[in-house]
């Protein structure tokens, strides 16, 4: 592999655009914290969540960000672990993005707790049979490992060791997403979950969502900072995104086909695929149509796939489709009635046997968005004060042997 001659430099970050961006993000975070105060002061009665739909919009955002975090690390992994040197210049940004996404997601998750003031309890008392408890270790370990990996990439003396750190980070991120998917996979009682496929499906989803976020981040940052971004690296990421979208789609198909085969799961499948109202709409129209098939068409259609705008739009759609997918999994899985007496008609004052309604409340949405704002703010500050971004990602810089083909 050729010696890394990439020049990394902090962004200028002195213009009005940068400060207005930071100001808006700060405002969104403040709004999120105000929502938390409101929710904690009054209790979760002011949210759309109930005793039947116990996890709501904050969890959709939190899980999306946490899943995307491990996916955003892929660019670094591909360069360090799989030796694809084209991606090497973006490895630092990839690591920082992963940390920022995880921090944003965890912030939302923690602030939605019934007792966020007891976070110290969660950090000191563990039930090691709980996948949640494992995840606390997986998340904190991810921060430590990725920060060490980032330092090794940035500290010249440590660069020879960065490959090993990259390998560890790669294995850890697979474990982390397995842990996140298993939060649902381990729920034996609910027909919408209780499936081993949740773990690999979440890994495929993470590849797709994380890269989509990363492509938008790189494109926008390079345009805003006036640094050259060549087609070569962009098209490579485009091709990779296409593969990841297809992989996530594959697991979705496998999940539903397997369920459709078992008469036991006919109820939940009919609910999600046919008569679940908003969940059916989100599944077919947003997740499959807008979030998977349409982006694939955009990416591989020469008219749009060779234009930066086309790739950005496709990436945005992947993110929207991803949020829809997680909404369908988390909320749809709870809205479907728990089969307490399978095969029987059930009714009670606690809404047994009926589809549970859920409508996101404003504080929940604002809290979720404030997690995204936190992610973006961390990245904005990091690229201003640390040499993370290459001064150029032109084709000649990314690959000195590159000869334009098309």
């Amino acid at each position, binding site marked *: 592999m050729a010696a890394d001659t990439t020049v990394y430099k902090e962004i200028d970050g002195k213009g009005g655009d940068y400060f207005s961006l930071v100001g808006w993000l700060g405002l969104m975070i403040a709004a999120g914290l105000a929502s938390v105060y409101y929710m*904690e002061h*009054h*209790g*979760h*009665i002011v949210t759309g*969540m*109930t*005793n*039947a739909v*116990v*996890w709501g919009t904050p969890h959709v955002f939190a899980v999306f960000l946490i899943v995307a975090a491990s996916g955003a690390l892929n660019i670094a992994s591909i360069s360090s672990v799989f030796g694809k040197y084209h991606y090497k210049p973006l490895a630092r940004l990839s690591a920082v993005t992963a940390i920022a996404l995880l921090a944003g997601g965890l912030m939302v998750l923690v602030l939605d*707790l*019934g*007792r*966020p003031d*007891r*976070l110290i*309890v*969660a950090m000191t*008392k*563990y*039930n090691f*049979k*709980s*996948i*949640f*408890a494992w995840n*606390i270790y997986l998340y904190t370990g991810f921060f430590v490992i990725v920060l060490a990996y980032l330092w090794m990439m940035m500290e010249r003396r440590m660069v020879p060791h960065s490959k090993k750190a990259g390998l560890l980070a790669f294995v850890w991120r697979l474990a982390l997403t397995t842990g996140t998917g298993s*939060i649902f996979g*381990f*729920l*034996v*009682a*609910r027909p919408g979950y209780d499936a081993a496929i949740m773990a690999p499906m979440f890994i495929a989803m993470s590849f797709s969502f994380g890269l989509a976020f990363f492509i938008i981040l790189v494109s926008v940052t390079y345009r805003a900072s006036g640094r050259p971004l060549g087609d070569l690296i962009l098209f490579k990421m485009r091709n990779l995104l296409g593969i990841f979208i297809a992989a996530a789609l594959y697991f979705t198909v496998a999940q539903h086909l397997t369920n459709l085969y078992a008469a036991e799961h006919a109820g939940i499948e009919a609910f999600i695929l046919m008569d679940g109202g908003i969940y059916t709409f989100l599944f077919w129209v947003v997740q499959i149509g807008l979030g998977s098939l349409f982006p694939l068409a955009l990416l591989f259609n020469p008219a749009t796939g060779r234009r930066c705008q086309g790739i950005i739009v496709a990436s945005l759609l992947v993110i929207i489709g991803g949020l829809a997918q997680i909404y369908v999994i988390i909320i749809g899985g*709870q809205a479907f009635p*728990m*089969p*307490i*007496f*399978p*095969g*029987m*008609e*059930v*009714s*009670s*004052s*606690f*809404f*047994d046997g009926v589809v*549970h*309604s859920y409508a996101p409340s404003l504080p929940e949405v604002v809290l979720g968005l404030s997690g995204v704002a936190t992610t973006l703010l961390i990245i904005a500050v990091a690229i201003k004060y640390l040499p993370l971004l290459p001064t150029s990602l032109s084709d000649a810089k990314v690959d000195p042997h590159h000869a334009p083909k098309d």
Partner: protein
Amino acid sequence: MTDKSMTKVDTSRRNILKGGAAAAVITLAPGVTLRTVEAAVTGPATNAKRWGMLIDANAPSDVWDIAVEACKAEQGWGKDEAHANPTTDPQWIRKVNVKDPKTGAKASLPVMCQHCANPPCVDVCPTGASMKRADGIVLVDKHICIGCRYCMMACPYSCRSFVHEDVHGQRPHMPRGKGTVEACTLCVHRVDKGQQPACVEAISNMGSDAMIFGDLNDPTSEIARAVSKYVTQRIRSDLGVEPGIHYRGI
């Protein structure tokens, strides 16, 4: 509430939660004369006992309303919620109506925490707040519940409630807290004094034996004799969670 009474409440609560004995409560809180109660548990909970219930779903359905009201009165839930919103109000025990769509056969039965031997809520709880005592009673330690609601996702019976708003009218033996999860405790505070759970007592006071409570491990107990005589069912027994609540007639 004075400092003194606060101390008393805390102490007794913690001992109940730790499976502590009534005797320990007496030592630590001298005002409480539990010593006189017949058959009170005098040591920590052990797996020599397995508390359980047998519920007869053939009983007239209105007896279950009495069981629900008795639970509300005993534990202090469902009375003072400010917003009275049925989707967020807690329900520790509820009457469920079941109908076979093919035959039209109907039954009503009370459903509460099933006090599983292998409780999914305990497995998933990150902090260990959801716990099972050695005698099979499943509880929430409200001191370390962080309100993540993962137990509610995991419970196959929808038997847990999240406290969505401030609560009032709490009972000294059953402190409740906004932002934590709660459920049927099998009236552990009564059981440890040798008494029956409030729902069972209310129904037996009517002269009905539709709910029988006792030690499933004691072959001479009424419940153990009943479950060995009649074929009983446990809800979602296919999940292998081994509930302590048995039913007849469903």
